[in-house]
């Protein structure tokens, strides 16, 4: 390995955050978070099937204020990764690489993520 560490030129401290880079890293971060959300889903299903006390415990936690914030966050993360994933699939077919298109589809993804989250939370809590 290289023992004489070469200096790095400045990066995160100086590079202006842009929609492209921010959405890209957000896709990775939401992906990682979703792994833990998936484990949570398995735990929830386990409690539903074999441990009703744990199920009641989880559901009561989810109905508190912080629980609702958490639920909203989980849905936002899920929908963002889903819609941005569709954007990735669009790129895999070679479509949408024009810079204006990249920005438009990026803002579109953020919009429909927010709308989907709001819609689902309304269905969960208001109906």
């Amino acid at each position: 390995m290289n023992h004489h560490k070469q200096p790095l030129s400045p990066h995160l401290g100086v590079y202006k955050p842009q929609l492209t880079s921010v959405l890209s890293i957000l896709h990775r971060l939401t992906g990682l978070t979703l792994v833990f959300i998936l484990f949570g889903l398995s735990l929830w299903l386990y409690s539903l099937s074999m441990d009703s006390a744990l199920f009641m415990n989880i559901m009561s936690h989810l109905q508190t204020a912080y629980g609702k914030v958490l639920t909203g966050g989980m849905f936002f993360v899920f929908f963002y990764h889903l819609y941005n994933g569709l954007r990735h699939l669009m790129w895999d077919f070679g479509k949408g690489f024009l810079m204006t298109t990249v920005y438009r589809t990026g803002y579109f993804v953020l919009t429909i993520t927010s709308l989907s989250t709001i819609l689902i939370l309304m269905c969960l809590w208001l109906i």
Partner: protein
Amino acid sequence: MTHFLSRFFALWTTPQKKESGSKHWVLQRVSAVGTIVFAFWSLALLFQITPFTYDSLHLAFDKPSHVIAMGGFLFFAYYHAWLGIEMVIEDYIHHPLLKTIFMATARLACFIGAFVGLYSLLIIILRN
């Protein structure tokens, strides 16, 4: 579309090394599509049960369509998650021993998670 399909077929029939990157790439896309389909299906079904109580959920999972939707989602989502974790580990961990440990732990965690989820669904069906 036919061009895409012919290249897809060529990819799977040419002999390649076991951990080939292009297969990983394709599997990631295929598992993504599977996850999307089963996710929307599960969400659509779960929103017919809006007050989420123990009983309403058990009633819902009585129906095979609900179980298949959730089971399919668990399978595809955990597979997609495993491929994604693999990619992230490859990007950030270069030390050979650490990399092996992380890879093995991540794979084990995904297997256990998927197994717990699918087994729970099985228990729910068998109990009802």
